[in-house]
């Protein structure tokens, strides 16, 4: 690792954050669909959905947050792709800087941007009646899991951004990710689903993450779900990171 890694990453992070501050619409756009879903499910379908929770939005919010992240990370792929198309990427590569800092700057930007979108969503949820008794430790755990989830998906976005042939391709990979929460415990308990769907729902990463965050918000014991959730997030993170770095090395040599 180059001696400049942290300094270079900080400089390039400053650059991308400035990009975001000049197009805050990307944050709003990331927040708007999840907020619309939240309104739709709480005020239109919510009355008919039996979750066992006394307050449907308390049940719904974790899944909505994951949808927001899954759609928000597409911007990372697009920003990376745009950098590569413009000559700026090659300028950085031809300079004596730590090469991986170019990627890390985009990844950290993704954390910041998704964090902002999530804050907006939680504020709207509070207005809509979301309540939690979670204390600082539970919140810390929630933030930690969401951070890991965002990191894992962002590294997938990096692979997409590096290998895409067009901007649409760079952004489009996230659609299946956005869809995953729908076939999970995010909107309705998995017990209501028919056999094969239920089997899929209960064994895909989103359900364990949703269950964990629901439990943390409600101050219920989290059980084994949190370990499954962590294992999924870390597993995807490590795999995506390794593949992204391999794709990056292919790209720059």
């Amino acid at each position, binding site marked *: 690792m*180059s001696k400049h890694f942290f300094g270079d990453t900080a400089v390039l992070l400053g650059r991308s954050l*400035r990009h975001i501050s*000049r197009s805050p619409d990307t944050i709003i756009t990331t927040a708007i669909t999840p907020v619309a879903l939240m309104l739709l499910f709480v005020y239109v379908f919510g009355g008919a959905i039996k979750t066992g929770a006394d307050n449907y939005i308390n049940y719904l919010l974790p899944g909505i947050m994951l949808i927001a992240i899954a759609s928000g990370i597409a911007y990372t792929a697009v920003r990376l792709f745009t950098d590569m198309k413009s*000559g700026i990427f*090659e300028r950085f*590569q031809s*300079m*004596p800087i730590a090469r991986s800092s170019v990627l890390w700057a985009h990844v950290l930007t993704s954390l910041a941007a998704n964090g902002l979108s999530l804050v907006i969503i939680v504020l709207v949820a509070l207005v809509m009646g979301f309540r939690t008794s979670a204390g600082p430790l539970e919140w810390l755990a929630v933030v930690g899991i969401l951070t890991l989830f965002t990191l894992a998906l962002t590294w997938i976005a990096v692979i997409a951004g590096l290998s895409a042939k067009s901007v649409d391709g760079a952004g489009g990979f996230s659609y299946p990710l956005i869809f995953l929460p729908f076939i999970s415990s995010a909107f309705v308990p998995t017990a209501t689903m028919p056999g094969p769907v239920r089997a899929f729902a209960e064994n895909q990463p989103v359900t364990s993450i949703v269950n964990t965050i629901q439990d943390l918000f409600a101050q219920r014991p989290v059980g084994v779900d949190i370990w499954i959730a962590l294992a999924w997030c870390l597993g995807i993170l490590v795999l995506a990171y390794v593949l992204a770095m391999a794709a990056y090395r292919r790209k*720059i040599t």
Partner: protein
Amino acid sequence: MSVSASAVPAIRVRGMEKSYKSLQVLRGVDFDVAAGSIFALLGSNGAGKTTMVRILSTLLKPDGGTATVNGFGVASEPVRVRESISLTGQFAAVDEILSGRENLMLVARLRQLKDPGKVADDLLARFDLAGAGSRKVSTYSGGMRRRLDIAMSLIGEPKVIFLDEPTTGLDPEARIEVWQVVKELAKQGTTVLLTTQYLDEAEQLADWIAILHGGRIIANGTLAELKRLLPPGEVQYVEKQPTLEDIFLALVGKDDKVGSSATPVVASSVASREDRP
């Protein structure tokens, strides 16, 4: 650093080969660039100029051959090479969303300079961009963008600067501005390797010209030397100076034969072109 003697070329390329799948772009390119000189790599579209520049700036690995820049091997010491060079690519490598000043500060910070703001302001003034410094680059004209692009490449005073078709797509006025910048650079002792498809550009700027064609350097020398490659015209009433274009067309006109031959055959028709002022 151990290399300081001016006898050591700033850039040395030997037997450089590069293919993209079955397309052989470079088939054994050799040339030297003397420290402090302006060297023009001349070639038509698709000749492999960008490929050569990308190899020299460590962005692309060659299939064969060697190259050193500022004494460092591009393959063996890429980090040292990157410390020695600056690249202005064929397409302006500027950040459209940032202002001109922010672009310059970004590069100054990445080059660990002490006072990025001052570096930026000095360059904005020098490149006649002071008035536009705080504007987003997306509002710049092509010429302004190119000037900013080159200004960004000067930060940190690299020993060797690569300019890949620096004036392609510029209007004549912007073109002359870029020429002035390049001449100034060389005056300060920076080695400049520029690529161009414009014969007059090489003629205007370069101390040394190499013509890249068919994957090889088919001619290499000072402008005067290249002109001597042409036989004198037939009986002429006015003494004619061949343009570089005459030389180029004469050389590439005999494509297959010149590729490997040291003494290119010159077509007889070229000497009858109109004189240049």
